[in-house]
């Protein structure tokens, strides 16, 4: 009997707490598979965020550190500078990275720190109950924007990959999603390329994943993926944003 597919060894054998259809579990799996294929599980160090993925360190089979809210890039800077030969990555949501941690990620990219950031953009605050995030689309409803986000009150959503790509220290930024198998495969290739560039010492690498939050969007998982492609992918175009 041969195995065609099984759970990656880059993940621990514990159930995940995520809601049904949440993209976090899929992205965890892709990172784990890349670590397994590149034989990095024993060396990699994950820096975990605050938010829905606060327990990510309990799911990855590699070492992990939990950072204060938004400060994962600062912790990753220290870890990478003291362990320059080990792969280091931060895993951050949009509330963590684009809001309270905006300064940390911008300055880490400016300095060209040699770690990778996996940025989960689901256009909402998940764990705290669906509040408006910097990435919430115009017109999208949130508990703090019950009539939908307006440009007059909250400005336009932040395109983080494009924003960071203006900085010289960033060598690779790509935006992907995981709604179906072709997009999922592309997301995995992007994560692998980011790790490869990090290990080659090229600079800061960034992968933004458009993710579904069916619970806080008030949709079923398949409907959420459809909404993501129809609305999020229109404002946040998929593809390589910068590659040096």
């Amino acid at each position: 009997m041969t195995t065609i597919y099984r759970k990656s060894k880059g993940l621990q054998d514990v159930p995940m707490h995520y809601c049904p259809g949440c993209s976090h579990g899929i992205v965890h799996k892709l990172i784990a598979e890349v670590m397994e294929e590149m034989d990095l599980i024993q060396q990699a160090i994950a820096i975990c965020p605050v938010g829905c993925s606060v327990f990510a360190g309990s799911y990855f089979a590699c070492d992990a550190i939990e950072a204060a809210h938004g400060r994962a890039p600062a912790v990753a800077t220290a870890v990478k500078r003291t362990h320059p030969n080990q792969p280091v990555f931060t895993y951050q949501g949009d509330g963590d990275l684009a809001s309270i941690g905006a300064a940390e990620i911008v300055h880490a990219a400016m300095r060209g720190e040699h770690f990778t950031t996996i940025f989960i953009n689901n256009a909402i605050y998940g764990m705290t109950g669906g509040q408006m995030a910097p990435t919430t689309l115009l017109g999208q409803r949130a508990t703090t924007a019950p009539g939908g986000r307006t440009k007059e009150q909250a400005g336009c959503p932040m395109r983080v990959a494009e924003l960071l790509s203006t900085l010289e220290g960033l060598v690779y930024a790509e935006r992907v999603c995981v709604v179906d198998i072709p997009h999922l495969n592309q997301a995995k290739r992007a994560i692998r390329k980011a790790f490869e560039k990090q290990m080659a010492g090229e600079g800061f690498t960034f992968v933004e994943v458009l993710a579904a939050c069916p619970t806080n969007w008030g949709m079923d998982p398949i409907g959420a993926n459809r909404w993501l492609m129809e609305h999020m992918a229109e404002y946040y175009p998929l593809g390589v944003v910068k590659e040096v």
Partner: protein
Amino acid sequence: MAIHLTFQRDLCKGCQLCISVCPKHILELDSAANRKGYRPAVCRDESACIGCASCGKICPDSIITITKD
């Protein structure tokens, strides 16, 4: 060559993403709930499975194992 799908029934959350990507349309939700209270995904015709592993790749909870004899 027979392909076998194994679902960890009690870890399934019934999100149906596996059902949405199966090219052979052989996955469905069970009529009975699992221990979590979700109706888990099951394969109704394993003999039609082509072993593409799409269901396993997209499962957010990584509960699907695919083998062949």
